[in-house]
């Protein structure tokens, strides 16, 4: 069975795909939210520095000047990423003012040059300094008291220091979401398994029914499946019922026809004359036709009944017992050997007809010895299922060369001196074929005919 084409696979795959997409989206969202929060808090700190700058800068002539240094010492360590700078827009270098940490380097402000920017509007962005630090920068533009010239106030912080925090968060996030994902997939797996378990129970029961170990679905199933199992049970019952009815009617028909036929034959036997002979002859033809078609109808009614199984040992024992009594004058004890494990997958009546005819033949043709054997097949027809063999052998004269073919044909009799309709072996042959089995005729170790009947058995191929 293709595992990909299963309900469990579909449910698990669909649920897992959705969960993974959702978890990935949640991860991306959480990570960007955290980064934004980190940025906001850095921006707030930078803004405080910016406010300090604004409070302490004034114009000395046309140059900006700090009247007191900032308290934060980070702005004094050279090239550490923490900088501030004040410069006139498009102004000369000598009118610029910057933190000691920036040494003589100046940061470009081109990225903040946007048209129609309001005075005092804050802009934020990222840039790099000469030593490659990733800088978070905020910039505001003011005109200083006593001048109309616009100055750019820029404060930066070292974002690399925060990057570590972000990546630590991301790692934790990946770990947590990964675990969550695995947990969700496992939960889905168990949920699906648990949810679908009644289906495997149902499957097991159906297998049992097919193998004839039970005749209806008896388990307690969830409401959704219960309706299906109820319907299946009704189907099984009506199937059995139809077959039962057909069988009964066939039997009744047989009885109804055969008694009048006996009366006709016997009445005609009492009177001589051409009419009586004609009646006898035609009644004989009718008798043969009736048994042929009844036999056919009987088998058609029985074909492929769901889940019939019978014990071939019982069948052979019963037939041996019966035939020994029928032919009590021969005084033969059938040398029978059985295998208690073997079960025939099919109708008991069919097996009885097949084995009955084979044993009947053996009783007809033997010279004192008959053997019957039930065993698992030594030469199975294929390996898909297991097979059983029923072997009936005698020490009679056996079949002449090429006789096997003729013996199995309808109405053919190799020896017209012995009683029989010539239907026996043909019935066995046709019934065995109906089950996918076969009948082979050969020479037995006892010296006479050996008939090997190979039929499907219950159980997997062994």
């Amino acid at each position: 069975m293709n595992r990909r084409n299963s309900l469990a696979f579909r449910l698990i795959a669909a649920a897992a795909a959705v969960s993974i997409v959702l978890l990935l989206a949640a991860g991306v969202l959480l990570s960007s939210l955290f980064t934004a929060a980190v940025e906001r808090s850095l921006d707030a700190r930078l803004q405080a520095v910016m406010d300090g700058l604004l409070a302490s800068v004034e114009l000395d002539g046309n140059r900006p000047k700090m009247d007191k240094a900032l308290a934060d010492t980070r702005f004094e360590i050279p090239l550490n990423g923490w900088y501030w700078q004040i410069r006139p827009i498009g102004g000369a270098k000598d009118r610029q003012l910057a933190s000691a940490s920036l040494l003589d380097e100046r940061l470009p402000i081109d990225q903040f040059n946007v048209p129609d920017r309001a005075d005092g509007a804050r802009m934020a962005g990222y840039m790099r300094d000469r030593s490659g630090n990733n800088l978070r920068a905020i910039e505001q533009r003011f005109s200083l008291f006593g001048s109309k010239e616009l100055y750019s106030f820029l404060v930066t912080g070292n974002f690399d220091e925060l990057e570590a925090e972000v990546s630590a968060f991301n790692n934790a996030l990946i770990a947590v979401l990964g675990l969550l994902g695995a947990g969700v997939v496992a939960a889905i797996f168990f949920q699906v398994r648990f949810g679908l378990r009644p289906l495997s129970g149902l499957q097991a029961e159906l297998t049992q029914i097919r193998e004839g170990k039970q005749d209806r679905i008896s388990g307690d199933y969830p409401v959704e499946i219960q309706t299906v199992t109820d319907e299946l049970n009704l189907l099984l019952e009506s199937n059995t019922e139809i077959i039962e009815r057909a069988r009964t009617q066939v039997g009744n028909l047989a009885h109804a026809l055969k008694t009048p036929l006996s009366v006709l034959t016997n009445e005609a036997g009492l009177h001589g004359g051409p009419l009586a002979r004609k009646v006898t002859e035609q009644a004989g033809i009718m008798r043969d036709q009736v048994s042929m078609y009844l036999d056919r109808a009987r088998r058609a009614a029985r074909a492929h009944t769901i889940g019939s199984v019978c014990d071939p040992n019982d069948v052979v024992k019963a037939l041996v017992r019966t035939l020994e009594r029928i032919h009590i004058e021969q005084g033969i004890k059938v040398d029978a050997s059985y295998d208690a494990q073997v079960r025939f997958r099919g109708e008991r009546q069919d097996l009885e007809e097949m084995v009955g005819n084979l044993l009947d033949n053996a009783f007809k043709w033997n010279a004192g010895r008959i053997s019957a054997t039930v065993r698992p097949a030594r030469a199975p027809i294929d390996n898909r299922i297991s097979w059983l063999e029923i072997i009936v052998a005698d020490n009679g004269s056996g079949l002449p060369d090429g006789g096997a073919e003729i013996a199995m044909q309808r109405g053919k009799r190799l020896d017209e001196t012995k009683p029989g309709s010539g239907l026996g072996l043909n019935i066995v042959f046709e019934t065995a074929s109906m089950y996918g089995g076969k009948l082979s005729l050969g020479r037995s170790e006892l010296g006479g005919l050996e008939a090997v009947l190979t039929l499907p058995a219950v159980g997997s191929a062994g």
Partner: protein
Amino acid sequence: MRLLVVEDDPDLNRQLVTALSDAGYAVDSATDGEEGHFLGDTEPYDAVILDLGLPVMDGVSVLEAWRREGRAMPVLILTARDRWSDKVAGFDAGADDYVAKPFHMEEVLARVRALLRRASGNASSELSCGDLVVDTAGARVTVAGNAIKLTSLEFRLLSYMMHHKGKVISRTELVEHLYDQDFDRDSNTIEVFVGRVRKKLGIHVLKTVRGLGYCLSEPDEQA
């Protein structure tokens, strides 16, 4: 030899009774299972021809009931249902042989003869006692090769005695086995029949056992 035929089809029943009577048996008949069971249970039949498909009480049940009640007479079953399962059921119920419908009357006659012979322990259809030979198949009687002509009742008597060779048979038993149930029985007529048979055979095989009945035995066993 007295037989019972249990068959519900009136035509077939009549044919069986006629054929069996013609063959020299005393025959009773029943047309349903209950009547058949009652007769088989109360009358001493030497063999029964029993149809399996009977109204009121089916043949297998009748047979099982007889065997349960210890009735051991040989039973030949007639069945339209010639499946092996039916045969197995019939034999397991206690049948001794079967004939499948439709059948030829000769087959039934042959089977009945075989059953009676088997019941009395004889292997051949020819029963003999000294020079006396009774061929049950052909209903012929010879003494030292010479054919003896007997009436139907005389043959029935001799045949019953031959089937029970060496046993003492009471008059009552003879009456029960020679006449069907509708016959006006009188055990005194038996003496007349025995006398006629002795005379026709001309050899002393049918002996009177005083106060008990008759016994058929070899002439030289005469003490």
